[in-house]
């Protein structure tokens, strides 16, 4: 795990119901809205081609409303004939969502709106109804796992040193919209308090999985979970439990305080947009400090969503499980 300044790409998956999205070649900054759309409820199927007596191929030519447009009740969606006209109208206010192979229409009521924001400063490299991909240059730190929605904000140091745990008392509403660096560990209490205070995201060496279960539910796994709903964003840099951040990681984080940053949860990456020279940290693999049952260094997981041109493989520093039983945690033969 090292800091790298390179050209990265980040995928931003889009929910169904996109209304507008950035186009290929558009310049975007992290935090910019790159896609917006509507959250849709149960769709109604409306007969189309059959009603107009057309073949499905001909029906699409007769559509008067573009698929993906908002419509109001009784809007004429398609019409044929002049003197004895036949038409298809929308039965409800909503979105013309889909045209079937048979030439029927799906219209869904709009219940909410959504937006997707960029997590990189750069250029839109791909844009379609499923994903917007942004490519750009940034400092990047590859984490072990990330949870929650993408987050964008200013980097703020929440601890005095790499081996400190972030205390709940250090979180307040003045930190709203920031990405807070939490040192060796952030607890469930810190995560929930930070979310309540409007903190954009948390970055720490380790997060106790029991705390993750409290916040994200019992189905949470070590591979992380990217979501779109209103939940806290957490990036575990080294693993689970408590993990003291190496100085080569922590010092640049401290130096980058105040810089704009983004957590891309699908790839578990922290992007920092700064031209600051943190090259010292870039050289070599950092020393890894293991605390208690915490992890050492890890090979990066195979991640979808964000890619780098060159392989960033890393060997684990530890190949055998080394367990240090605690007081209540000894095998019978050792007791």
């Amino acid at each position: 795990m090292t800091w790298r300044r390179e050209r990265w790409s980040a995928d931003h998956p889009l929910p169904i119901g996109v209304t507008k999205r950035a186009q290929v070649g558009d310049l975007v900054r992290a935090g910019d809205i790159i896609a917006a759309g509507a959250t849709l409820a149960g769709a109604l199927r409306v007969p189309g081609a059959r009603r107009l007596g057309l073949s499905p191929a001909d029906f699409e030519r007769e559509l008067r409303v573009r698929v993906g447009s908002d419509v109001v009740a009784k809007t004429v969606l398609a019409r044929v004939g002049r003197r004895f006209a036949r038409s298809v109208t929308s039965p409800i206010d909503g979105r013309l969502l889909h045209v079937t192979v048979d030439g029927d229409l799906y219209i869904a009521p709009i219940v909410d709106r959504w937006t997707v924001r960029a997590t990189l400063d750069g250029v839109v490299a791909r844009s379609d109804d499923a994903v917007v991909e942004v490519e750009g240059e940034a400092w990047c730190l590859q984490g072990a796992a990330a949870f929650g929605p993408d987050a964008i904000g200013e980097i703020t140091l929440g601890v005095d040193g790499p081996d400190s745990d972030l205390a709940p008392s250090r979180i307040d509403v003045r930190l709203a919209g920031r990405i807070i660096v939490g040192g060796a560990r952030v607890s469930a209490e810190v995560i929930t308090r930070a979310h309540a205070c409007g903190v954009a995201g948390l970055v720490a060496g380790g997060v106790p999985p029991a705390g993750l279960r409290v916040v994200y539910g019992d189905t949470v796994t070590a591979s992380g979970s990217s979501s779109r709903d209103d939940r806290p964003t957490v990036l575990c840099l080294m693993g689970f439990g408590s993990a003291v951040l190496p100085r080569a990681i922590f010092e640049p984080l401290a130096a980058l305080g105040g810089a704009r940053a983004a957590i891309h949860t699908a790839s578990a990456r922290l992007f920092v947009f700064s031209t600051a020279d943190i090259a010292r940290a870039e050289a070599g693999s950092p020393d890894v400090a293991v605390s208690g049952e915490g992890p050492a260094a890890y090979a990066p997981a195979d991640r979808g969503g964000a890619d780098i041109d060159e392989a960033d493989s890393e060997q684990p520093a530890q190949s055998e499980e080394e367990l240090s039983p605690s007081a209540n945690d000894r095998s019978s033969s050792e007791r």
Partner: protein
Amino acid sequence: MTVSTGIDAPVEETRVALGRSLRVALVHGREEASRRAVTNLALASGAEIVARIRASDPRSFVEAAQALRDARPDVVVIQGGTKDEVALAELLEALRLGCGAQRPMPRVFGLVDTRVAASLRLRASPFEFERFAAASEVVDGLRRLRSGGDSDAPLRDALIEDGARALAETTATAALAVDVTERSTSLVLARPDGRIDAAHFIPLGLGMGADHVVVRASLDNVRRWLPWPIDAPALLERMFNRTRRTVEGPATTEAAVLLEMALAREAIAHALRDAADAGLDVAAMRSAPSILITGQPASLRRAGQSLLVLVDGLEPNAVSTVFREPDEGRAERIGMVVAVAPRRPAKIRIVRASGRSVARVDPGSFGLVAVDGDVEVAVSGAGVRGHGRSGELGVLIDARGRPLSLPERDGERIPAVTRWHAALQAIAGHRSST
């Protein structure tokens, strides 16, 4: 990995491919049989099931489309009858809406009759639609995608199936192969006539799949197998950190070995539950006369550890001869399991070439009888009778009952689990007790 065809045959080195991860969405008809059939296909091919949608799914059209989009399937497998045609066509529309922009596009595999296929093919555009006449063809098709066209290195699951088949042929009885790796758990039942029931669960294993064992089987179910108290957060931390480490070779420290054994038991038990849910013959698996254990549990240092994992996870309910085959070694016969569930003390008669002996079996007892060679056993009153060959450990008499239930309280559970480990010499410093 090495492959051996028996304990006396030479070991042959083989290059094995794990295959690429194949994400499969299952779309099936209303009938329970349809759900089982399509689940069977995915399990037999070693694909990862990322979404399931039934023809009568209560989710709305938009929700179904969103579920398919979020699942990002490589392949959508469709199975259903004529009466499901309309509903399946609608789900294909949801697929078009959800995954139309996905790159590469998912392929659609249909296990449907020709008339339904003609209708669905029309609606599957622009996805590539392939109709298969038989389930085995779908499995082959999915496996081809997993292997990515690399025919030189067989997939691990195919090799496990070959092993089970070879064991069934050799012993002329049904044979079960149980394989647990870092990321996968496999159960393959082979019959002497060559038919097999196979289920490969991914991700469900001891390393990268450890967190999935905890999520599916629950943390308490893993913890109950540890012969020492440990609080749930500490155990969870270890499980999650296992997923991020590349393990080279078997675990060596005792705590790590016991943790791995606990995970393996639950991986096997959970795989059995899923196999039963998919309609596989789990009763036949549990009563298979020959059982082969491979993968990481087979690589544990002591044969007793491998046997204990198998007996606790699988809960065999007959007389079985157990073999183990580590990835880097030859197959060896490690013991014979006699599972009995007597309500009152019973007698077991053990007949071998050198004579016969009678042992008393108390309900709940668990222990080894040091016997070598061909053995014929019969338990009075319990209706258990069988023939097998004991291995280096002898005959394991398991009278703990089925289903195996562990005491809830640590004060009762830990001594019991410790006793079972000790009976099979699975903990350092303990020797056999019969």
